[in-house]
């Protein structure tokens, strides 16, 4: 089963962390990635640039329009994600709990299963 673990970050919360705390988060992600690679559960992981660098594209009457900044007016933004392939949802949750962000108030770690165009209908 494949799951997306999305990391929702709050720039204000991140800014308030000490350098040591930031370094610990970086180290924690590094160790997490190594462990997932070794177990054969990591598909990919990406971190995204700051939401201030986002561009929202819309097309109206065939004319594209671009506005700077994120789409959602929110304190939290998608900061990055892990795409994993593991045994079941319980395992995905167990893995998500090892991500350093999960231990920090104001940062969100969300687990959602990837949908496939296959499935069972018959007994």
């Amino acid at each position: 089963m494949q799951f997306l673990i999305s990391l929702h970050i709050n720039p204000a919360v991140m800014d308030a962390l000490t350098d040591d705390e930031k370094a610990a988060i970086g180290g924690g992600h590094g160790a997490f990635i190594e462990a997932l690679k070794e177990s054969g559960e990591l598909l990919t992981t990406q971190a995204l640039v700051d939401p201030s660098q986002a561009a929202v594209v819309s097309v109206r009457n065939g004319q594209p329009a671009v506005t700077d900044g994120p789409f959602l007016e929110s304190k939290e933004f998608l900061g990055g994600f892990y795409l994993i392939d593991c045994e079941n949802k319980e395992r995905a949750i167990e893995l998500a709990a090892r991500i350093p962000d999960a231990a920090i108030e104001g940062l969100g770690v969300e687990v959602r299963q990837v949908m496939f165009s296959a499935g069972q209908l018959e007994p």
Partner: protein
Amino acid sequence: MGAMTAPAFEDLLRELAPQVLGALVRRYGQFEGCEDAVQEAVLAATVQWPAEGLPDNPRGWLVTVASRRFIDQLRSDHARRERESATAAEVLPEDVPDTDDTLVLLFLCCHPTLTAASRTALTLRAVGGLTTAEIARAFLVPEATMAARISRAKQRIRAAGRSFSLPEGAEREERLRVVLHVLYLIFNEGYTASSGRELHRADLAHEAIRLARTVHAHLPEDGEVTGLLALMLLTHARRAARTTAAGDLVPLDEQDRTAWDRALIDEGTELVSAALAGPTLGPYQLQAAIAATHADAATAKETNWPQVHALYLILERIAPNPVVTLNRAVALAETEGPQAGLALLATLDSDERMAAHHRLLSVRAHLLEQTGDLPGAYEHYRRAAKSTASLAEQRYLEARAGRLAAPDG
């Protein structure tokens, strides 16, 4: 030298791979390194055989190439550790064609310390003779991910320190059940593949059947082995009818039964009859018997539902499971009406494993539709569609909901 097509080379390689691996492990006593060496020999064969023709003794060719790879690896390991190389490794092994280690390898790959995902991957590589790239494609993961998973699985087996022999007594019986479950998982992974980018996954169903045939050839007297093979054949027989050209799922009662594969049905039915006549009864035999009952009906209306219900009732007693109860509710609704089916479904509401299960929702939707409660049916189809992780199933459930007049709208 013989002229063979690429698929014929592939079939031969997959058949020979576990035999070659068995010969190497018997010679060198080390599963992990030998398995890597056989994988390399198989890869070399896929390049050389189609280009240069089949060697006179393909099995001997593979044993020789794999042994050289293994010895080279051993030497470089030794050199790295600045140790003397083992003299035993200097001699290429004699081919030992009389021993078939396929079962031993299967039991090893289905080691209890491994996760189900690792067991399936390792089984396909070491026993199925598939390459890591093929397995990765089949499970829709990158090759590096699959390579790491297989490597980790082999390390765990080494750490567990198993000898290269069949387990005995109760452990053997228990392990055989794990082996059958792994083959069942491989089959299901392939069977649920229906369309588009997942077409190649259908190969997994083919591989699972091939491996089940091998186990059956070794253990023809085991009723559950026979039952599993029969279940696979009877299910695989429906593959052409279970999706539309567009990749949409077609439920059993709407399938074009003339598109079912009669040869597979006949073979599966014969196997399940033989298994049921034996002294033991198990879940695979019962599921195969249910599939055979469906296969026996020319139309959905002619299905012997009392027999299907009776088989589910026995299955529920010997292997209690909420999904079995769910299926029994479908059969009960056919014999005693939708209200009886709904009453049985109500007993599953308190089961945590089923509470938000999309199949409980979708079966309830079907039965509500039959009772004429269309708003209730609509609501349950919609909820089921939201709960499934399958896009094809979601499309099907939304189409069912769409056929009913939306309430309040």
